[in-house]
Every structure is written in structure tokens, then in C-alpha cells.
């Protein structure tokens, strides 16, 4: 962490933004540039390396993730097996690489699913008072289930598995985006320029598209990076307690769960998957911090 914090003057001295009152906000390119400097860059590199490793798993992995290698029982890390081998003689590096792919699959399906659904519900429900009240109560009820408890409930009904994990993450994200977009809609509606637009005959749809959406893009962008971190955590946690990805299929959570049972015999086994999970979660959170700070400048 010290290396990251090294220059104490990490606050980028960008030219102050001229936020015009038309509702367009900061030019997009400059905002995303926050990911390419300071802690944003560190986060991007962490995430980038893990994503590349996952994508290139078929090329990089020395063995198949399910292949049982004769005589290689609980070997400590060495030249042939960089992360050692597990209780049933599988190469842990290969499992971690393929497990990362499963996590990436969860990320690219669950987070967009939850974000788009939640945003749409939040935006559309804000159009009328009745739908707004209903949507708010539905969000309250969804939020009353802490995400892992929701996972337990759904796993009890639908059974454990990849689909359940994706569904749980998406369901947990819906109220967050719903409230975000609703808040943006209510705030923007009070703005003088929106009143002006309404006076000259702008419809509610036009206001949503032209004023609410552009104003909400940045907070949604920050939230997406946070959601990605949360999604890695939820997959890991669900698979860890046995209601997520099922053995023998690898995922970061299930590999960590496997390594815990062998912790006394081979402590090194857990380190590889733990490092990958930490790099992903930390990377996404650093990106989120950089994007959030980029908004404030």
C-alpha cells in the first residue's frame, strides 16, 4: 500500500471544469482519464492483469482445471506447479486461471443485468407518483434482504449454481440503481433549465432522455465499478459456503473453499486464489475512487 500512497500530492491538478447549465456535464473523455492516472491507474492495472489472465486461460494454463495429475497430491508451489496442487491432485494455477473466467462471466452478465433493469425501473417509475410509490416499496423489500441472505434464500429454492449467483447479484443491484436514477430524476426536475424546457413544451420523455440520463451517467459509472467489486465478493462468498459454483467446477470462491480444508497440510494453496480475489476487488474499488474523485474536481 505504501507504494501506492507514495506521492502525497496525488490529487490531480486538472483545470477546473466549466459545468455549463445545459445538462451535458464534464466531457466524457476527460472524466474516464481518471482511470489512467494515480490510484485509478493502479486499479486499472490490477483489473487488467486479472482480466487478461482469465481471457488467456486456455493458452496460459499448463493443465486442464479438472485434470487429476498422478502422484501430485498437495504439492507445495514449485517450478512445475506454480501454485501447488490440491487434495485431488489438480494443478491450482490452472484452476485459478479457469476460475477467473467463471468470475468474469458472472461480472459481465450480472452487473449489466442489474444496472440496466434497476436504472430503467427507477427512471420509468419516477414518471408518475403511483408507480414511484410502488417501486420504492419494492426496493425497500429487496433491500431488507442482505445480499448473502438473499443468496441463501434463492439457493434454497433454485438450487446452487452459476445462474443463482448471477440472479442474486442482479437482484441485489436493482434497488441501488433504481434509487440512484430516481434521485437524479427528482433532482434534475427542479433545475431551472428543466423548468424552462417544460415551459417551452418539452415532454417528460424528452426531459428524461436529454437531461436526466446525461446527469446520471457519472454516478452510474462510479456505481458500476463498485458493483463489479461487490459481484466478485458475492460470487466468492456464495461459492465459499457452498451455495454458488459447485465442485468440481472452478471459481475463485470454490477454490478458496477447497484450499481451506487443506490449510494445515498445505498452507500455500490458498495464497494464489486469495491474491486474485484481492486484486480484483481492490482494483475495482480504486477505479471507483478515482472516478468519484474525478467527478468532484
Amino acid at each position, binding site marked *: *500500500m*505504501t507504494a*501506492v*500512497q507514495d506521492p*502525497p500530492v496525488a490529487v490531480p491538478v486538472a483545470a477546473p471544469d466549466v459545468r455549463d447549465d445545459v445538462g451535458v456535464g464534464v466531457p466524457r473523455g476527460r472524466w474516464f482519464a481518471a482511470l489512467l492516472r494515480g490510484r485509478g491507474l493502479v486499479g486499472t492495472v490490477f483489473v487488467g492483469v486479472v482480466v487478461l489472465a482469465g481471457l488467456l486461460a486456455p493458452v496460459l494454463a499448463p493443465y486442464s482445471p479438472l485434470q487429476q495429475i498422478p502422484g501430485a497430491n498437495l504439492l507445495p508451489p514449485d517450478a512445475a506447479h506454480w501454485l501447488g496442487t490440491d487434495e485431488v491432485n489438480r494443478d491450482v494455477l490452472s484452476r485459478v486461471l479457469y476460475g477467473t473466467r467463471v468470475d468474469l462471466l458472472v461480472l459481465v452478465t450480472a452487473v449489466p443485468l442489474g444496472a440496466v433493469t434497476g436504472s430503467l425501473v427507477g427512471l420509468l417509475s419516477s414518471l408518475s407518483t403511483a408507480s414511484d410509490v410502488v417501486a420504492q*416499496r419494492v426496493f*425497500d*423489500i429487496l433491500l*431488507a*434482504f*442482505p*445480499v*448473502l*441472505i438473499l443468496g*441463501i*434464500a*434463492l*439457493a*434454497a*429454492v433454485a438450487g446452487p449454481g452459476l445462474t443463482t449467483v448471477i440472479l442474486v447479484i442482479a437482484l441485489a443491484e436493482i434497488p441501488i440503481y433504481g434509487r440512484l436514477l430516481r434521485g437524479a430524476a427528482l433532482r434534475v426536475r427542479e433545475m431551472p433549465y428543466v423548468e424552462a424546457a417544460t415551459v417551452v413544451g418539452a415532454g417528460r420523455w424528452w426531459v428524461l432522455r436529454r437531461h436526466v440520463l446525461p446527469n446520471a451517467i457519472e454516478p452510474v459509472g462510479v456505481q458500476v465499478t463498485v458493483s463489479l*467489486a461487490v459481484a*466478485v*465478493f458475492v460470487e*466468492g*462468498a456464495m461459492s*465459499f*459456503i*457452498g*451455495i454458488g459454483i459447485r465442485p468440481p467446477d472452478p471459481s475463485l*470462491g470454490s477454490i*478458496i473453499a477447497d*484450499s*481451506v480444508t487443506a*490449510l*494445515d497440510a498445505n*498452507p500455500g494453496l*490458498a495464497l494464489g486464489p*486469495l491474491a486474485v*480475489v*484481492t486484486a480484483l*476487488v*481492490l482494483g475495482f*474499488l*480504486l477505479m471507483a*475512487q478515482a472516478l468519484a474523485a474525478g467527478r468532484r474536481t
Partner: protein
Amino acid sequence: MLRYVASRLPSALVVLVVASILIFGLLRLVPGDPATTLAGPDASPEALGAIRSALGLDRPVWEQYLHWLGSLFTGDLGRSYLIGGSIADLVLGGLLNTVVLATAAVLLAVVIALVVGVGAVLTRSRWVDALVTGANTVALALPTFVSGVLLVLVFAVALPILPSGGVPPLGFAARPDITAQYLVLPAICLGLPVAGSITRFLVESLRTELAQPYVLTARALGVPRRRIVLFQALPAALPSMLTALGIQVGSVLGGAVLVEAIFTWPGLGSLVEQGISRRDYPVVQVLLLLSVAVFVLVQLLTDVAHAALDPRIRIGGSV
């Protein structure tokens, strides 16, 4: 004050009732019938029917729901099909262990937040600040199952100075020193993310308070900065830390399931895990509803406490 509580109560009740219907209804959809599981594959239709009527499974669903709801209030939760024993006893036993763990974790988090947060504001050093931000990011970024496994690796495997799991064999009260040994790793694991989050809230609201005009006045009158921070800004900043703590309840509940799994702590989390793996749904049902009820109740208490501490909210009226 009472009016404020009364204004918050209905929506909390609606959430609870809908959640209980959802939990009851969802677990009805589970494929497989507990009577079949209980009677075994070779049971005769008569035996199956007898079990079904004994469990009340032959009555209409809404009647079963009302009966279940009623049994929650009388405390007679029935017997567990598969884990064995009365559900009320199972839940009470688990609840005690989980409450001990969660209390230790939350206390730890509050102490860390107060020491680190106030320390960071008092010293006003860039380095302390950077350190707090960094530590906070790491505390938030380490998923519970990662920090838990690391804690076991370091303190139970590499330097075997603490037990890797379980509860004190003689109970919590018998030997406090042994209890502390068993409690310290799980409590750190569960409390760390909470500490990270509420420390950040505390530092931010302390800074907001210190920018207020009354602070300038106090400074102008010659009150030392440390006195202002401790006796004026801190009391004013506590409500928002309390709210942050209330928001964390969900992650403490979910986190407890993980922490109990890592450290084989026999609380409600372990019970729910057993219930799912053995398909003992009456147990799972009660535990799910209990966790939602705790969550809703704590949110309500947080709002009320916040209103009690900050008159602007209760005068501000309905939210």
C-alpha cells in the same frame, strides 16, 4: 418523537409482512416434499399421508402460512425434520453464539473507528491521513472470506498462537481469557470491514463539523483545538457514525454466515448452512425471517436514534 416513530412504523411493518410471505411462498416452491424426504423412498401412501397431515401439509397454503406466523409469536416453532430437536432451541442456541460474536465485532469496530478517526483529525498529518485512507480501502477491499483465511493462516497455522476455530469448550463465561482467544480472530474478521466503513464516515463528518462557524467562534475565544474536536465536534459527528453503523447491519448479518463457516463458530450462520445442505426448510425459513426482521428493526432503531440525537430530522417530518 412518538409521532416520528409512528410515521416510520407502517412501512417497516409492510416490508416485514411482505418479506414473510415471500420467504414462506418461496420455500413452498422448492422441488421435493418434506414428507417424502422424511418417510424415505419406500413409504406406503398411507404412511406418507399420515406424515403430511401431522405436518399440516394437507391444509391450504394460506392456512399453513397463518399457522406458521402464529407459531412464530408463541415461540413454538415445531421440530426440525432432519437436524433434530426443537427449532426454538436450535435457534436460541445459535442466536446466543452469533450475538456474542457480532457484539464483539461491532464493539471492536467502534473502538477502532473512534481511536483512528479522532486520531487522524487531531494530528492533521498528511501521512496519517494517507495511512487511514489506505487502511480503510484495504479493510473494505478484503472480502471476509479472504481476511478470515489470511487470519487463520497467520495466527493459527504459521504462528500457532490462537485456535483456528470453534467455541470455548467450557462456555463463554467460565474462563474469560480462553473465551477471548477463541473470539479474537472471528471478531477481527467480522469487524474489520465495519471499522473501515464507519471510520471513513466519522472522519468525514468530523471535518464537516470543524468547518462550521461555531468552531471558528470557539477558536476565537481561545478554546484549544483538541477540546473542540473531543467535546463539540465529536458529539455532533456521532449520529452520522451511528447511521453508518446501522447501514452495516446487513453486511454483519451476511458476514456472520461467512465468518462462522471459516471459524466453525456454531451460530445462526452455521445453522442456516446446515439447514440448506440438509434441505431442512422449516429451520431455513425461520432463520431467513429472523435476519430480515433484525435488519428492518435495526434500520428503524437507527432512524429513531438519529432523530433523537438530531432534532432537525424529527422536526423535518416525514421522509
